[in-house]
Structures are given as structure tokens and as C-alpha cells.
């Protein structure tokens, strides 16, 4: 079932948590709401679930059906909380059965059906053996799987997960998110999960919604948002990045003492810009080629792990730069701390800072 959010606003006191947010989530997709804390991602999720009521105006549609005025218990959403929110006084079995047991008598399944449904859900989350345990006897990862089974028991139209892996340790988190991805491929329920971890969002989801300051900054597949970030915020948020103060003029960019081609600015007047390069998109060479490279000083190298990491310092202004190289290239170069090398950005992403356009007139 698709979800459409239209012009939703939410305010906590004087804090604008959601600022005219509109968003379309296609049926059957697994979508990540990604953003720093305070970006409004959890608020948006809770508004969709009916746990938070937005300001008047706007609408929330589940498959073209307005649900904004419906309370949480009428929306048929499955909600999974960061801290599981399991019922401590109930066994695992009773936790999963809860949503079925509270259904009105007319539509409530029989005892036998409830028992069968719970057993099959416990099998789905691979915890059949724990039916008679209590939540406190389970590990964090197990509890979150039970919370998921409990949410799925009522056959929700959409599944909403609020930082579902946030309370788990690193290894369990990775296992569980891959497991969630496989589960989603099996059951294909429209799912939205909130995360502040870009790696998690990029790895698991079909589509990433990047949020900041109560607004949606960009929506796209993981490849789109990573490779074609719409703005500096998205670029920054999705992974490590080096940034340079730059000047663009008529198809050329002047960055830290180097002159590089910038075809997207062809025919534009001189302007201040910010350039972004990811650490693995920089080539290190020993010889400068006609000013097309940025001179830098090697400060430290770290060859542990599948990729080598090199910390450098720009000679021009002493700013730090991080470069990631393949092992082969790293061993071939034999870099030593203190030596001077030249950096060639393979992919430089420039964002013109229009507010600070240089006063200098164009010289075309």
C-alpha cells in the first residue's frame, strides 16, 4: 500500500519539527528516512503512524485514502520502536498475539488460529524456541525481532520502524539489517525505517529520503543520492568528504592552487563555490602536471584494512585532506610521512555559492 504525505507541518512549542513536508512512498518499497538528529525524520514517521498529530492542513494518504484524522489504533500500521517497547509482563507468545487478542469479537481469529499465526510469525523471525520466554530473557537483537513479529501479526498495511537497529551493538546491527532486507524481499510490505546511519540507509533501502531541519532534501535510490547529491548537505551527510573553497569561472575551477575543468559552469560569470571530493575519488601522484593537481604534504598513512587511508595537509593553506587508496596502489606508491605529493580529484562536485558571487565582472 502506497503512502503519500502532503504539506504536513508539525511544531513542538517554537520548534518546527516538520516544515511543509510532502513525500510519496510507492507500494512495496523499503524506504529509509535518513537525517541528523532533530531533522524531523522520527516525527514524520510518528505522524504517519498516528502517534503524533500534525498541524491542521495537509493530508496523509494510504493508497488514496485519507487517514489523517484516524487515530493510531485505526490505521493498521505496524510500528517498531527503537527500544522494542515489548510488554514485559507477557511471554514472547503473548506479545506477538496481543494485536490479535484485542481485535473486536466479530473479526478476532479463534484461539487455534491465533496460536497458528503466532507460531508461524515466530518461525519467520527464527525464534520459535522462545515462545514461552519473557522479553527480559532475550538479547537486544532477539527482542527487536519479536517486536517485528508482533507488528506483523495484525497484517499491517504499512510497516514503520523507528531506528530499529539503533540500540544494538555494531555486529548485531549489520546482521539484523541484512536479515530485514531479506525479510522484506519475502513479504513485500511497504516499509519505512528511520535511521541516522547513512551506511545503513544506503545498504538496506530501495529508496532514501534525506531530511534536514524538518524538510526533505532529496529522495532517490541509494546510488542516486550517493553519486548525485542534490546539495552540499546531502553530499556531506552521505559519507566522508573533503571540501575546498573554490572559485569557478567560465568552465574552469580554481581549487587550492590547482586549475581544474568544470564544464557545468561553462559560460558562467566568476563565482565563489564549494568543491566536494570523496576520499576514494582522489588520485595521488608524485609529479605535478601543469597546475592540474593540488600539492599536499603526507602526514600519516594507515594500511590496515582492505583500503589504505592517508591523511594529508594542503600546502596552500594547511587544511586536512583524507584520501582512501586501494591496497595495490598504496603499496605501489610507498608513501612516507613528510613527503610532498600531488592530488588529482577524479570527481569534483562543485556547488556555486550564489549568495557570495564575486563582484568581479565576467570576462567573456
Amino acid at each position: 500500500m502506497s503512502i503519500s504525505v502532503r504539506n504536513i507541518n508539525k511544531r513542538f512549542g517554537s520548534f518546527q519539527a516538520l516544515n511543509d513536508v510532502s513525500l510519496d512512498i510507492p507500494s512495496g518499497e523499503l524506504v529509509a528516512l535518513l537525517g541528523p538528529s532533530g531533522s524531523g525524520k522520527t516525527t514524520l514517521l510518528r505522524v504517519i503512524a498516528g502517534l503524533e498529530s500534525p498541524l491542521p492542513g495537509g493530508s496523509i494518504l494510504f493508497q488514496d485514502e485519507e487517514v489523517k484524522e484516524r487515530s493510531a489504533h485505526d490505521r493498521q500500521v505496524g510500528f517498531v520502536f527503537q527500544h522494542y517497547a515489548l510488554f514485559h509482563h507477557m511471554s514472547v507468545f503473548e506479545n506477538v498475539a496481543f494485536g490479535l487478542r484485542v481485535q473486536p469479537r466479530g473479526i478476532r481469529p479463534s484461539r487455534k488460529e491465533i496460536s497458528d499465526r503466532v507460531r508461524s510469525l515466530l518461525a519467520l523471525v527464527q525464534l520459535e524456541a522462545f515462545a514461552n520466554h519473557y522479553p527480559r530473557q532475550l538479547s537486544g537483537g532477539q527482542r527487536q525481532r519479536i517486536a517485528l513479529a508482533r507488528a506483523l501479526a495484525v497484517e499491517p498495511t504499512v510497516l514503520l520502524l523507528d531506528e530499529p537497529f539503533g540500540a544494538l551493538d555494531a555486529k548485531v546491527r549489520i546482521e539484523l539489517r541484512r536479515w530485514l532486507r531479506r525479510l522484506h524481499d519475502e513479504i513485500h510490505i511497504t516499509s519505512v525505517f528511520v535511521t541516522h546511519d547513512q551506511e545503513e540507509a544506503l545498504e538496506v533501502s530501495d529508496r532514501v529520503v534525506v531530511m534536514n531541519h524538518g524538510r526533505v532534501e532529496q529522495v532517490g535510490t541509494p546510488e542516486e543520492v550517493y553519486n548525485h547529491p542534490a546539495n552540499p548537505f546531502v553530499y556531506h551527510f552521505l559519507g566522508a568528504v573533503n571540501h575546498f573553497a573554490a572559485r569557478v569561472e567560465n568552465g574552469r575551477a580554481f581549487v587550492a592552487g590547482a586549475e581544474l575543468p568544470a564544464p557545468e559552469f561553462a559560460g558562467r560569470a566568476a563565482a565563489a563555490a564549494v568543491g566536494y571530493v570523496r576520499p576514494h575519488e582522489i588520485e595521488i601522484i608524485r609529479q605535478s602536471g601543469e597546475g592540474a593537481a593540488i600539492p599536499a604534504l603526507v602526514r600519516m598513512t594507515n594500511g590496515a584494512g582492505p583500503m589504505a587511508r592517508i591523511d594529508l595537509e594542503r600546502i596552500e593553506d594547511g587544511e586536512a585532506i583524507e584520501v582512501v587508496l586501494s591496497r595495490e596502489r598504496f603499496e605501489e606508491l610507498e608513501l612516507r610521512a613528510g613527503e610532498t605529493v600531488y592530488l588529482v580529484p577524479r570527481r569534483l562536485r562543485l556547488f556555486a555559492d550564489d549568495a557570495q558571487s564575486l563582484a568581479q565582472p565576467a570576462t567573456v
Partner: protein
Amino acid sequence: MKVGHMKIAFRRPSVLPGFGVTLGFTLFYLSLIVLLPLMALAMRTSDLTWSAFVEIVTAPRVVAAFRLSFGTSLVAATINTVFGFIVAWVLVRYPFPGRRLVDAMVDLPFAMPTAVSGIALTTLFVGNGWIGRWLEPLGIQVAFTWLGIVMALILIGLPFVVRAVQPALEDLEIEMEEAAASLGARRSQTFVRVILPSVAPALLTGFAMAFARSLGEYGSVIFIAGNLPMKTEIVPLLIVSNLEQYNYPGATAIALVMLLTSFVFLLFINGLQWWTRRHRMKGIS
């Protein structure tokens, strides 16, 4: 060998040493303050022959007093459990102006001399009192009946329930209620299936404390009860009047029965608490 093994069983290494000293102190203190007087009580009773003892405690006047004391205490503790829960709920859940003041007022029955509360209640509920004058025409007489005793016991028992339930309600995760709602539970279902079971142990504690306190209450009750033998005479009063007549064996015999019955009651409530808490304690240890 055996001793060494025992030590390992219940003495875990901890940052703060002093298990031996504190346990010793606890046992000594409890013996001095609690056990010694109770021993004396039992000793005094042993002056009586068994048949004399039975005769005293099965006298119709004594049985009536027991029935009244336990009956009114049960009723008052039950009422307190319901309304104490509501008071605690309001104090925990809703920030309203003057909440701290109301919160402090809950403790007043703790602090007030019980005789003062007794006299105050009597003044309210007698035939021409502020409340009594409206109830009397309806045929409801509170002062000098068992209803009056219940009123007094409700007053002094309320803080026990509120103070027992408050922390449990504060610890209740709002998320559990949200989870219940998102699973389709209506508010009443969330309350009955999620909130109530979660605070049940605390409610039982509050009930037990209010009940125990009510059983022993003397000061506030004697003013409003009227103290008619067979009708509105509570056990503590019976004990005092026996003492005033220098009938020490009679007083101690009644007291001993009172003590044993209360003990059984509290043991039962404790068992119930253990039973409701059992699940959540699993896995923690």
C-alpha cells in the same frame, strides 16, 4: 568446606564491602526493635492456659471486634487502592499548575496526629456537621457507625497507595502504550492489558501497606467510631480497654491473635506480589 561453599552462593564480590557488618546490624536491630517486644507479648500470653486463651479470644465481643477491624480495613484498603491509583496517575501523567502542592498534600495524613484527623472527620460527619447534615436525611449515618471507621481508615491509608504506585507509573514506558495503540488496542484494552498488569505489584504493595496500617490504627478511629461493644469497637480499642482494667493476659491474648492473623495476611499478599513479579525478575538475576 560446606561453609565456604555457602559463602560463594550468596556473597558476591562487590565494590562496597561490608556484607557481614550490615547483615549483623540488620539482624540485631530488627531483633531489638521488632522481635523483642513481640517475644514479650508471646511470653505474657503463655501465662494463660490454653483453654483460658481460647475462651478469651472466642468471646463474642472479641470476635465481633476482629470482624469489624479486618472488615473495615479490607474495605478501606480496597477503596484506597482504586482512588490512590487515580491520584497517582494524575500526579504522574498530567503537568498541571499546583501539581507539587497536591503532591505534598498527599502526605498530610502521614504527618497529622491521628487524633486530629479523627476529630476533624467526626465534626464533618456528625448529624449537624458539614457533610453529615446532607447524609443524615438520606438515612446514611457515618459518624459512630462502621462507615465512619472506614472513612478514617481511608484517610490514613491513602498516602501508602499513592506513594507505592507513583514510582511504578513513572517507570512505565509511554512507548508500551503507543505500541498497544498501533496494534489496534483501544484505550480501555491498553489500560487493562498493559498498564494495570505492569503496576500490579506496586498496587499490591500499596494495598498491603494501607491494610496493615488500617489494622493497627487507633487514634483517628476511636473518635468517629462511637466504640459500642459488639458494634463499633475495633480490636486495638479492645486491647486498650483490657489494659485499662489491668487485664494484661486478656490484652496480650487478643494482641497475639491480631498479630498472627495480620502476619498471615501480609504473607499471603507478599506471596501474591512474588507471583506477579516472578516473570519480570527472571532473566534479570
